[in-house]
């Protein structure tokens, strides 16, 4: 019996010690929970349904509500959830009640003081010996500061992105403006060069035309007065008259070349310029027995041009084409428009003044002549370069054409066609529609 007494004493002592250890552990746990702003809640489950919820002591720091308030009002936990986040919280609860282990959920709650808070809710299931869900615990962290920091970061990032985009746009605009400036500068240099050439040409023209006038009228006087029996005198006088006409043609070409700076730019129809130029060279076309094919786009956008100068361009090109062809030849004029690089492809030379995506209008003049020897292709725009027989060409026609196109901010390219003959491509910028609108509106 003494042994039993001793055993009972030992057992009682051990139980006491164990109870004390448990009490101490619980107190430590409570102190720990009370010391943190985060808290734990427990949900008791019966037959898959939540039947009771208890909220740990830290809940007041996070939600503003005391544990007792949650106990008194069993729907308070749901009502404090931000309205927009309630479906996600219910989904999390449903999943855990189904026995799943859903990932932690971050959502908003409305603090008792009315402010919005962010929490991270991590749930851990508790199962009985049969593996059924008996309860689950939830650990709630207050992540408001982190979320606010994230928000600030996101806003700062968005702002940075907006600034970066604005910077990129500004950079693009600057690049565009710089390019435009360069083009304008080139046009100004070209115009200044032409103006000085023009001033010189006008002076030369005046000085040369007066002597030509004397010679021409001198010939007019001599021809009826020369001895009828001397045929050579008549031939020499005739040659002199031809020489005067040739010299005058050169002077005229120089004046045209120089007059290219004096432009009257308006929104115009390139097709109309083609048609008018064709009417003006009709006589040469008929005399040369060549036929004309027009492939003119009826929906061609308008272009900013000096119509008279552009007609002069077409006249020069048509005459060149007609003179290059034998009877039976075909002169084909095509016009079309498009966005460079998208639905319009032109040679590198012709696309030089433009950028990808520019809205352009193009005219193509093609003949069926013998073409231009490759060595001469690079010289065709040089003043006084001609392959025509002496006396029939001044060599200024294509120089005039190129200068006119340059001063329109356009381009020209001359190539031999694979099918034979020459293809000339003229490219001009389409008039922006808003500008047309404002012009029409004024």
């Amino acid at each position: 019996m003494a042994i039993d007494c001793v055993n009972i004493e030992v057992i009682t002592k051990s139980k006491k010690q164990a109870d004390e250890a448990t009490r101490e552990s619980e107190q430590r746990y409570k102190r720990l929970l009370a010391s943190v702003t985060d808290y734990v809640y427990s949900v008791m489950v019966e037959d898959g349904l939540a039947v009771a919820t208890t909220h740990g002591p830290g809940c007041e720091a996070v939600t503003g509500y005391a544990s007792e308030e949650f106990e008194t009002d069993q729907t308070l936990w749901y009502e404090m959830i931000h309205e927009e986040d309630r479906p996600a919280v219910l989904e999390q609860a449903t999943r855990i009640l189904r026995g799943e282990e859903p990932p932690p959920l971050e959502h908003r709650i409305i603090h008792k003081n009315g402010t919005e808070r962010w929490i991270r809710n991590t749930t851990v299931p508790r199962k009985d010996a049969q593996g059924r869900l008996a309860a689950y615990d939830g650990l709630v962290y207050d992540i408001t500061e982190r979320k606010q920091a994230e928000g600030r970061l996101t806003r700062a990032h968005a702002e940075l992105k907006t600034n970066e985009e604005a910077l990129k746009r500004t950079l693009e605009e600057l690049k565009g403006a710089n390019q435009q400036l360069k083009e304008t500068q080139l046009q100004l240099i070209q115009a200044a060069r032409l103006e000085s050439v023009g001033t010189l040409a006008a002076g030369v023209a005046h000085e040369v035309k007066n002597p030509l006038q004397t010679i021409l009228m001198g010939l007019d006087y001599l021809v009826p007065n020369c001895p009828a029996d001397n045929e050579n005198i008549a031939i020499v006088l005739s040659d002199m008259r031809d020489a005067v006409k040739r010299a005058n043609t050169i002077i005229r070409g120089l004046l045209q070349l120089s007059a290219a700076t004096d432009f009257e730019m308006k929104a115009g129809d390139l097709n109309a310029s083609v048609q008018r130029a064709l009417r003006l060279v009709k006589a040469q076309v008929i005399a040369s027995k060549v036929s004309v094919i027009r492939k003119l786009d009826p929906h061609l956008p308008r272009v900013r041009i000096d119509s008279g100068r552009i007609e002069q361009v077409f006249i020069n090109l048509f005459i060149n084409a007609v003179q290059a062809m034998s009877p039976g030849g075909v002169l084909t004029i095509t016009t079309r428009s498009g966005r460079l690089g998208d639905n319009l492809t032109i040679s590198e030379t012709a696309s030089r003044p433009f950028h990808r995506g520019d809205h352009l209008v193009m005219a193509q003049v093609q003949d069926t002549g013998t073409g231009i020897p490759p060595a001469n292709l690079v010289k065709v725009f040089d003043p006084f370069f001609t392959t025509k027989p002496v006396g029939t060409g001044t060599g200024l026609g294509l120089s005039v054409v190129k200068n006119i196109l340059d001063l329109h901010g356009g381009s020209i390219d001359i190539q031999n066609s694979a099918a034979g003959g020459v293809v000339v491509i003229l490219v001009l910028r389409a008039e922006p529609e808003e500008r047309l609108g404002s012009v029409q509106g004024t």
Partner: protein
Amino acid sequence: MKTEKKRILVVDDEPSITRVLKLNLEQTNNYTVRAENDAQTAVAAAQEFKPHLILLDVMMPGLDGGELASRFQAITELKSVPIVFLTATATKGEVYARGGQVGGLPFLAKPVEISEVIACLRQHLRS
């Protein structure tokens, strides 16, 4: 019946031009030509010569053709005398483009053949 020769005053600072114009026109026996190479004395010459028509160069030293034309037109007895400009500063294309008129007056672009000059004189002497 012999028709009266028309008096033409030619004003141009280039003596070679006025000389060949005079020779060409006078050999038709239809015109009497007075050549003037100095614009400053041209008004007095016109008042004395009483031309039926004046052929006038545009660019001349001292006094240009346009100004001289205004002076002619300011004088009562010369007011109705037709004036035709001769100019080296325009091309034939420009003459056609402007309908042969500059400042409301007809003009011919140098170098011009005598046949064109005569056709122009006939046209303006008739009207």
